């Protein structure tokens, strides 16, 4: 449940914050949220990645469909990637990796703090 919730939260962050902040700010926010929600490493990785990747995928598809612009195709050709759909895919993949590693780092960060008090009491 928290997994699905986190994906939705990440999508929300990208949609509402990304227009005003560059991608690396979004990465930090995803990392912090992942730490706050306490997902496991694999969950944080997948949820962060899917959230960011799906959000960028959705935005790219929305812009492409609503404007009908040929620019994605032209950019695809310019970058030697063929069609615009490849560019859509690349956008989603880059988004996925930015989100996934941020999510993973966040959950591992929380792990550090969770264990830290245990160690203190033992010592």
């Amino acid at each position, binding site marked *: 449940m928290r997994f699905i919730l986190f994906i939705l939260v990440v999508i929300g962050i*990208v949609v509402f914050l*990304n*227009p005003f902040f*560059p*991608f*690396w700010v979004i*990465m930090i926010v995803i*990392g912090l949220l992942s730490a706050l929600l306490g997902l496991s*490493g694999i969950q944080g990785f997948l949820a962060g990645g899917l959230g960011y990747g799906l959000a*960028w995928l959705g*935005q*790219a598809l929305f*812009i*492409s469909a609503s*404007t*009908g*612009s*040929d*620019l*994605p*195709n*032209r*950019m695809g*050709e*310019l*970058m030697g990637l063929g069609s615009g759909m490849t*560019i859509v895919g*690349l*956008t989603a993949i*880059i988004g996925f*990796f*930015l989100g996934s*590693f*941020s999510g*993973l*780092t966040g959950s*591992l*960060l929380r*792990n*550090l703090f969770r*264990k830290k008090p245990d160690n203190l009491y033992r010592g």
Partner: protein
Amino acid sequence: MKYIGFFIALAITVALAIAVSMPLGPVPPLAPLLDPNHGFWQNSYSEDELAKDELELSNLTSPVTVVYDENLIPHIFAENEEDLYRAQGYVTAKHRLWQMEFQTMAAAGRISEIVGPIAIELDRMTRRKGLGYGAELGLKYLQENDPEILKLAEAYADGVNQYIDQLSPGQVPVEYKILNYRPEHWTTYKSILLLKYMSDMLVGDRDLEYSNLRKILGQEMLDKLYPDFPVDNDPVIESEHLWDFTPLSVTKPDSIPFPNDLLVIDPLPQPEEGTGSNNWAVSGSKTKSGNPILANDPHLSLNLPSLWYSMQLSTPNHSVKGATLPGALGVISGFNENIAWGVTNATKDARDWYKITFQDNQRKAYRYGDEWRPTTFRIEEIKVKGENPYLDTVVYTHYGPVVYDRTFKSERQDVNFALKWTVHEGSNEQRTFIMMNKGKNHEDYNKALDNYSAPAQNFVLASKSGDIAMRIQGKFPLKWKEQGKFFMDGADPRFEWQGYIPNEQNASTLNPERGFVSSANQHPVDPSYPYYVFDNSYEHYRNRRLNNRLRELSDITTDDMKALQFDDYYLHAAEALPVMIGLLGTSFDSYPQAKKYLDELKSWDFFADPNQKAPTLFYIWWDKAYDQIWKKWSEFGVPVVEPNNYQTVRLLQITPQDPVFDVDKTDVIETASDHVKIGFQAMVKAMKEWEEKEGDYSWANYKRTSVQHLVPQFAPFSVTNIYTGGGRGILNATSERHGASWRMVVEMGDEIKAFGVYPGGQSGNPGSKFYSNFIPIWANGEYLNFNLRSKEDSEGVLFQTILK
């Protein structure tokens, strides 16, 4: 263990974030480019989808209304000129910012800043020609002499800069995102530089080549193959014009010791062949409505974003509409409620070269008469992307910059040549256009032109009051015959220019009896004009076709003028082909393939329409035969120019046995017929290959007109294989990469009827639907409605924005 895991994950994340923010070789940073919120995706929106009812523009005295018609042509309504030009800067930047800046970076020799060391030699060349130096003098001229224009130019720059400052990351033009740099502020200097850049685009010289030819061929042969005036001279100012002034005297030195070296240096890049223009005006006596009609189509490199940007600029006192140059104030080719005007290039050997003799290796002084004159050094610092700046020292003499010296493009260490060019003198072209925009009659037009120096243009005029006029305006040096045709000796003061032709003695005509004025880059005047006139690049075909048609036509309508701009008649072919077929004889009639081509050529009507096949055949045949005839010229081993098409056709026709056709190395004596036959064989061979590889050889398919993005590597932003006719030397001068970059036809009646089109679109954004939407219209010879609009006009409005 947990710490290690965390730090590894953190390290990967940070490394990933850095990797996607950094350029990887030529690949720009990926995340900023692909981020749908800021990257290129945001450039998918067209201007109407981003329309705002109100935008902030500070420093206005009152609000400015901008009405966009359905073609995204802005109509700016301001209360005064300062507001008007501030808004022009703002609106132009909104649609063409990247292009404006890129063109001035090119003009300033700053391309290396954007693309790296690959452009250093190009930038050195640009700077050595002194464009930046000329623009600095132009700015100084405005500061010292013309505070009014300076204030308006500063308002324009402020408008551009306010737009740059408001620019959100997503709306940064896509080229910046791909090339990974950001716009810098605009300045008045850049506006002036842009006009200098136009000079550079339009002005060439062949002094180097003529110097070599003179040494190789001798004066007599040179005069025979390269006469100053053609036999069929049909000049800009009608031949029967009488010159009603007393010319200034020019003293020709008794003996003229031109430097006599054979010169192996790389010539400066020349304006592309096919760069030229047509303009004309017909008086009411020849038109159906009784109103004068004016037409203009400048031929330039076909580029996207287009060189031109259409606008209407209105204050309560005037309304002007037409083609603007992004970066320059006002309309360059257009019309207002009272006059219409247009421009064509009027080059007249504006660049001259002086051989410089330095005192010693220090280059601190050079010989001039009996003295040594001091030089000045200008250090050009060329910033290079990813590398240390490149420093280039350019020596300046009183003539101008020493372009060629031991460090640049010269194989000989002792050869130094300084360039003298009117572009290096303070001038005020911007005032000409601002005054012309408000002009009401022929007198205002003349006053506006008095401020104009370079690049020299044939300015055509038609006024509502019924006048038609043509004036060849530029700052033309007074020269004795052949002065500046060859490289000159800078140590000999007798080679100096002896002043300038006064403005009122520049060739001009008003309401000539023949009922029309016209220009197509041909010789400006008849030999009766009292000053020396020379240029290698004068046109010999478009002018005669144009004037022949204008003489024939009567009851002329705007549709007739549109048809004439789109006229595909190939006069060069009409004159050359019968001669060539005659020289070919019947020797190829028994070969079926050759016979097929010959039959197609023989039944041709000489129109280079897109679906015709004969133009391709003729074009290749001529090309091969011409190469064959002048092949020995390329064997001279030094830069030379070949005799032009017109002279070559005359030789073929009148003296086919001329010794000039003989190839020295062979035992037999060749004649014109031999070359034409070899050319024909080469054409048949080339056509066979073409047909096997490409199939269809209709003219449009062979010619493959393309409109190319300013960065040639951005091929997907170009439009290629455009189906359209015409070619070099044809009124519809659309060749592979050059052609009518703007077409305008205006009828100056009580109600002004105006039409215009250019091969591009109003938007500079390759993602916009307004980026190249005019190209199909242009390719079909169709036009957009360019009538003046009032602020209240509600028909065909795309959207409207108030700037305040």
